[in-house]
């Protein structure tokens, strides 16, 4: 797995600078547009291209009795449509299914890069990508809330809890306002970002830690290095679980926010 011990051990211990990717176009490095052409943005484009090609190819000639690939494509959309959009939002949730399914696919495939050999970093470990999705969700759920209840109606709907004693409102309304209208996109973005950041960090610690142990000299430490690498493999599998879960959670929470905006009651 690791063949250049001398080189890699110098990276140990990994830190935040492990996430500082230089621009692939050297002349842009350090400028505003540098981050637009890094390994991470390349992986984002690759993810988008793979998803688009997969869906367009498998759904070019759909049949009533699906082929294996068609079934896979359908079940991704079908699960988001039926088990997230319709289950949480209700029958009218079907109109959000395309957005939710796209969010799920985008997050899942970009997350998947974190364990794909040679890529081994998720673009979502840079806060900017989760922020884009979280802010989009934020705009949408505020937009549909305002459209349904009116601006003031939506403010009241999302901040005033019914069935609460009047003297609690001065405390509760600011809290509700903060949590429902300000913090939701932040928690949504940070949850995804932090999970992918930490996952990458853990993998770095075990793989690079193994290298450091191997190169440390004493023969006694070599089995420890092997153990560290074995654990890196275990953590890679764990990372697969986490990245799927985070993609699901991101989609699920987006649907929940949509539902809270178009609900008649709390």
């Amino acid at each position: 797995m690791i063949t250049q011990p001398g080189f890699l051990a110098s990276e140990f211990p990994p830190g935040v600078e492990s996430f500082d990717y230089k621009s692939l176009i050297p002349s842009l490095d350090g400028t505003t547009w540098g981050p637009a052409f890094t390994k991470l943005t390349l992986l984002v484009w690759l993810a988008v291209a793979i998803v688009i090609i997969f869906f367009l190819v498998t759904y070019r000639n759909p049949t009533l009795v699906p082929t294996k690939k068609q079934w896979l494509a359908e079940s991704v959309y079908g699960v988001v449509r039926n088990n997230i959009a319709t289950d949480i939002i209700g029958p009218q949730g079907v109109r959000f299914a395309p957005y939710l399914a796209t969010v799920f696919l985008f997050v899942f495939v970009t997350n998947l890069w974190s364990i794909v050999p040679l890529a081994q970093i998720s673009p979502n470990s840079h806060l900017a990508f989760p922020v884009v999705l979280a802010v989009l969700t934020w705009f949408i759920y505020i937009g549909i809330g305002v459209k349904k209840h009116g601006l003031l109606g939506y403010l009241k709907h999302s901040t005033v809890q019914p069935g609460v004693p009047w003297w609690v409102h001065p405390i509760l309304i600011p809290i509700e306002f903060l949590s429902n209208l300000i913090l939701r996109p932040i928690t949504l973005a940070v949850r995804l970002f932090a999970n992918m950041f930490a996952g990458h960090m853990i993998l770095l610690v075990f793989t690079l830690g193994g290298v450091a142990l191997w190169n440390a000299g004493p023969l006694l430490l070599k089995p420890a290095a092997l153990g560290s690498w074995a654990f890196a493999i275990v953590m890679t599998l764990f990372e697969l679980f986490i990245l799927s879960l985070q993609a699901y959670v991101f989609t699920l929470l987006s649907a929940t926010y949509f539902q809270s905006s178009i609900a008649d009651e709390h």
Partner: protein
Amino acid sequence: MNIASNAPAGEEYFVLGVPLAEVIVGLVAFGVLLFVLTKFVFPRMESMFQQRVEAIEGGLVKAEKAQAEAAALLSQYKAQLAEARTEAARIRDEARADAEGIRTDVLAKAREESDRIIAAGREQLAGERASIVRELRGEMGALAVSLAGKIVGESLEDEARRRGTVERALAELDTAGAR
């Protein structure tokens, strides 16, 4: 694996930074994905789901129709079977009645025939008896006279007397036979 690169001195990497360039890339990439999938893929999936639902519902309707048809056929067959049964029963009854009629006919004919035979036999018997009686009567007279002549040893001369005696004896015999 060149995982990290060395940050240049003085320019620290900020983990929570949100570079505008990355935001734009994220927005455009997500937008492209959303556009393509929403425009070309998901509507076709929806229509496919719809078609599938219709296919299944159509199948159900077809199955229902087939079942109704089968039920109609079954009742028709049952009716036909019942009809055939009553027909068979009717035919059997008729046959029985016919057989009965034939039997009584044959019996009546046989009885008639036997009666006829018996009557003919009786008649013949009566005729024969009468002729035998007649013959006997004639012979009996002659026999009795000759017997009496032999016993007496002489010819019975008195024709008239002899005749009267025989006639009387025969008349007595007749009355004795009739008794």
